[in-house]
């Protein structure tokens, strides 16, 4: 079954009734890391779908290998949205996810990451893992865009495979960078706060 990226993006947007907002930032093809709160397996797909087509073509969502490689349909979908699949169960020392990401983005692509690690079932966002910090440290030139995903966990909650078509909202915030000599904990806290405050805007 041939299915184009545009069609997949359209279906994803209709199904999740998503509204897209850009606050103090604009869609751009420059290299970026979009980092968002993680509430549903649809997150990566939907952020990708919310980007305008020419930006979308350069974006690579980082997603869980164990979920997106199960079954032929998911595998096929993952190739359409150019997912960068990360093995969560087996993290090698010399092949850390951050190294893999840096290698894969090269000098043109952007990334969509979920620094909380696993999906969060609580209402409050989890603490950010340090991967985002190392990304910023190794590639200080890449813009970091906070993204807040609202209500998508109700569209497809954990452990469910049938989506319920409620309305969700995706908010892109202003770019941030790792400051010179900024401590890891401070940076991660600041990044998390930048995502959280988009909820109330």
């Amino acid at each position, binding site marked *: 079954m041939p299915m184009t990226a545009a069609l997949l993006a359209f279906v994803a947007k209709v199904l999740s009734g998503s509204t897209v*907002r850009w606050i103090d930032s604009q869609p751009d093809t420059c290299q970026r890391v979009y980092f968002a709160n993680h509430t549903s397996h649809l997150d990566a797909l939907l952020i990708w779908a919310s980007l305008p087509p020419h930006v979308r073509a350069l974006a690579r969502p980082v997603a869980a290998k164990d979920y997106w490689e199960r079954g032929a349909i998911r595998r096929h979908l993952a190739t359409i949205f150019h997912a960068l699949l990360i093995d969560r169960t087996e993290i090698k020392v010399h092949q850390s996810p951050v190294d893999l990401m840096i290698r894969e983005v090269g000098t043109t692509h952007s990334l969509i990451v979920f620094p909380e690690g696993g999906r969060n079932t609580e209402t409050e966002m989890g603490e950010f893992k340090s991967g985002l910090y190392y990304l910023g440290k190794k590639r200080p030139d890449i813009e970091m865009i906070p993204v807040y995903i609202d209500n998508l966990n109700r569209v497809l*909650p*954990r452990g469910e495979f049938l989506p319920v078509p409620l309305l969700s*909202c995706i908010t892109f915030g202003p770019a941030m960078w790792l400051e010179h000599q900024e401590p890891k904990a401070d940076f991660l806290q600041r990044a998390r706060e930048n995502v959280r405050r988009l909820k109330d805007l």
Partner: protein
Amino acid sequence: MLLDVPAEILLGILLAILAIAYFAGQALRRQPQSVVNPAIVDTFLYRIRAWWLLYAVLGASFLIPYGRLATVILFGILSFWALREFITLTPTRLGDHRALFWVFFVFTPAQYILVALGQQYFETYSILIPVYGFLFVPTRVALAGDSRRFLERTAKIQAGLLICVYALSHAPALLDLQLIKDGEKWRGGSAGMLLFFLLVVQFGDLSQFLWGKLIGKRVIAPAINSSKTWEGFVASVLTTTLLGGLFWPVTPFNLLEAACMSLVIAVMGFAGSMTMSAIKRDRGVRDYGTLVQGHVGILDRMDSICFAAPVFFHLTRLFFSAA
């Protein structure tokens, strides 16, 4: 035949009035900001556009072959969207997910398929949601094993299904009534009935707003809706009754009957918008539209239609139908 000559004329006049209002709004928009508030003009233009679109799509679906089916599908989509807004607004828990899936993908389509099949399924579509849906929802939620706020959660899903799907489905069901006039089969087009109904509901909403602004003093329930006043309510019911009576040529009613029906529709429309205001206020939002930024609030436009449709349908069926 869905559309007869009087109904065509009415639809034509309506689209023309809306178009004129739209261009008048555009002209106002070009005025300096000191003369008119641009936000109000934008809201006005937006509403006019939404109405124009609704009647244009409706008119188009009356004209094409299988027009009744097209109208049923149109209302099915509206129901689906309204339910989406209703459930998004309502806090549900993880345990409700499967029940919601059934509500969206089984009960909603099934209701509209039965309505599309026509009057011989009247008894089935009249009880599908109030009986089977009503019993199914709590069962499915109970099977999910989460007892917290059980009654509240199931009641919310049931209310959403009843208001957004069951009640609204009576509007396209109007098209398949076997109408009689003076003891004989009515020869007019059934689209006139739906047009009559929608016009009267919307005129009721509009006149209530205008009368409320002009002469409204005593607010009925300030905690629920600060723009609904006793003066506005009474004046709008009276004007809607008079104007609705004048629409009698598109219906099997005579002038007096059309006026009485308009009275009932105006009161039910008021009931619908009050009830939905109460739900919105309870959830702390002003409009379903602002619930998700930049999203169109279909439920804001449909609330009065939802409440008036089943009552108008059943009164018509009881007094003016051969079935």
